């Protein structure tokens, strides 16, 4: 859909990381309110109305946009809380609201026509028909693509739709289709759709056992580590399980997404914006990752080759394993 310069959309979990991301070169930052209306409802994160207003002023003064995620599904009989979050975002001058729930999209479309609507990845809209439905019904201007599509499929999709697309390029990786995963509530009672949390920290335990440490979520063993082995967070879909006589990381290895090498491909596929995951990350991390991706995107825009991009993004792995996820067909 686009032939312009790709937009770099960066995480802002706190006012401090918002400023850091803007100063590191983010074209847009995304953030949420300090409640269950957004999908990163973690203690110590997110914004009050005043902080958002201040953040929007700062971002706009520096030529960046602010996108506000109100992307959980409104609780029955409490829809007003989600509507009020949208009203506050609009009053603060947010450039766009990122939403997934029909109730929220409908409210914004009817009451805040000046605010762009972006369809959250939590809405899992992956076909021209689904995206067309949201465009016709609510006037969405952009869809954040579900992490199930290959680059070829994204290119075909962009030819068939009339709204912009935004694709994740770096950070945490959901293996399941986001917005359609209840694994967390099955184990813990809390889920991304209901509460804006996945595998919540208060349900995590690290139990020292003879010759190993077990990482458990709500009592379910998600992984086990030898003495001296680095201990990971027990995210459900990155656990080690037994099935069919095999013990393996059945759903996904403990990897994170790095599609840095695919920026040029995503541009050629017609993607408008590249998204970095990580609203739970601190200022230092955000600064470093945004700075590197800023350089990489600029290099791609100037026709830089793959070797140059790789060199710019080397060192963005934190020593952990990475994958290009569904962008590469073999991932499936």
């Amino acid at each position, binding site marked *: 859909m686009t032939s312009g310069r790709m937009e770099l959309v960066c995480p802002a979990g706190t006012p401090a990381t918002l400023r850091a991301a803007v100063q590191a070169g983010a074209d847009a930052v995304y953030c949420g309110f300090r409640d269950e209306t957004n999908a990163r409802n973690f203690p110590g994160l997110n914004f009050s109305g005043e902080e958002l207003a201040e953040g929007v002023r700062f971002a706009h003064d520096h030529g960046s946009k602010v996108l506000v995620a109100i992307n959980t*599904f*409104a*609780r*029955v*009989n*409490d829809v007003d809380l989600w509507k009020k979050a949208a009203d506050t975002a609009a009053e603060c001058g947010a450039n766009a609201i990122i939403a*997934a*729930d*029909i*109730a929220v999209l*409908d*409210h914004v479309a009817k009451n805040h026509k000046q605010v762009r609507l972006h369809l959250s990845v939590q*809405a*899992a*809209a*992956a*076909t*021209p*028909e*689904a995206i*067309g*439905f949201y465009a*016709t019904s609510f006037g969405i201007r952009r869809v954040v693509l*579900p*992490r*199930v*599509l290959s680059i070829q499929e994204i290119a075909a999709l962009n030819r068939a739709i009339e709204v912009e697309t935004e694709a994740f390029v770096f950070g945490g990786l959901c*293996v399941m*289709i986001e*917005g*359609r*995963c*209840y*694994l967390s*509530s*099955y*184990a*813990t*009672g809390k*889920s991304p*759709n*209901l509460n804006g949390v996945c595998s919540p920290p208060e349900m995590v335990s690290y139990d020292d056992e003879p010759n190993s440490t077990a990482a458990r979520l709500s*009592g*379910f063993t998600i*992984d*086990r580590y030898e003495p001296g082995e680095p201990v990971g967070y027990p995210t459900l*879909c990155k*656990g080690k*399980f*037994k*099935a*069919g006589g*095999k013990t393996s990381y*059945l*759903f*996904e290895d403990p990897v994170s997404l790095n599609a840095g090498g695919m920026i040029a491909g995503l541009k050629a596929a017609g993607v408008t914006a590249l998204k970095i995951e990580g609203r739970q990350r601190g200022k230092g991390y955000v600064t470093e990752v945004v700075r590197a991706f800023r350089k990489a995107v600029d290099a791609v825009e100037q026709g830089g080759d793959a070797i140059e991009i790789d060199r710019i993004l080397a060192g963005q792995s934190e020593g952990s394993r990475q994958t290009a996820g*569904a962008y590469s067909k*073999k*991932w*499936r």
Partner: protein
Amino acid sequence: MSAIALTLGPVFFHWSPDRLLDFYRRIADEAPIDRVHVGEVICGKRMPFSDSAWPEIIERLERAGKEVVLSTLAAPATVRERRSIADLCTDERLVEINDVTALPSRSGKPFVTGPFLNVYNEASARFLIQRGATTICPPVELSLAAVGAMAGACPEAEFEIFVFGRLPLALSGRCYHARIHGLHKDSCQFTCERDPDGLAVDTLDDQQFLTINGVQTLSNQVQAFCPAPADLTSRGVRRIRLSPHTCDMVEVAKTYRALADGREDPKAARFILSCLDLPGTLVDGYAHGKPGWQAAPSI
């Protein structure tokens, strides 16, 4: 006559055409079920195997007086999958929508929203009802109280709650049956057909936990929510959904019919279910607003 109607949801697993024909023949002849969902909802790659069986199954069920609902794919991707949804949406029978992809082709005609469609509140429900939703079966993680609150706010539609079967918990772009067999989805060899109730996934400490079924993840435990009829009717919930497994589904249906009619009490119904050859232990946590794997203390 009955205040509470019984639905048999779509088969989630890769059953052979013969197994499907046998299964629905028995449902048609023996199961006290009002409405039966047919069709593949999990994986479009399986559709060529079962496509030829559906006309006979539908004919048989309708001849037996069942209302047939055509269920559609939950995560369509290919052109062929999208076309199949659009085609099914033109049918005069009721259609179950499991992905927003189907909405434009079905708007204005009656449809059921299945548990894969995110309907979490009365405002979303109302929006869909205005476009033709007549029955709403919300996501399984919602409690009976939440479903009841939606039903109370939207009396113009029928609300349905998932009471029996392994719980559909997640979908992925990745096929886990292929992955565990060292294959990719695009050349999967249909290994999912070996596991007609899904393949059990246990923790490293042998705790029963999940089940994989191709791109789908379900609970290992079996939802067996057995409410007293008044718990449903007082909240305006008028339909319950049973999800097919290889166990004796006629007996499951008879048990829920007796429960809904007040001929069996919840405790007795649960006991009867526990005597069947179920693929996992009984749970009902979600219905009570608790983690899905939990079971209410013996009623």
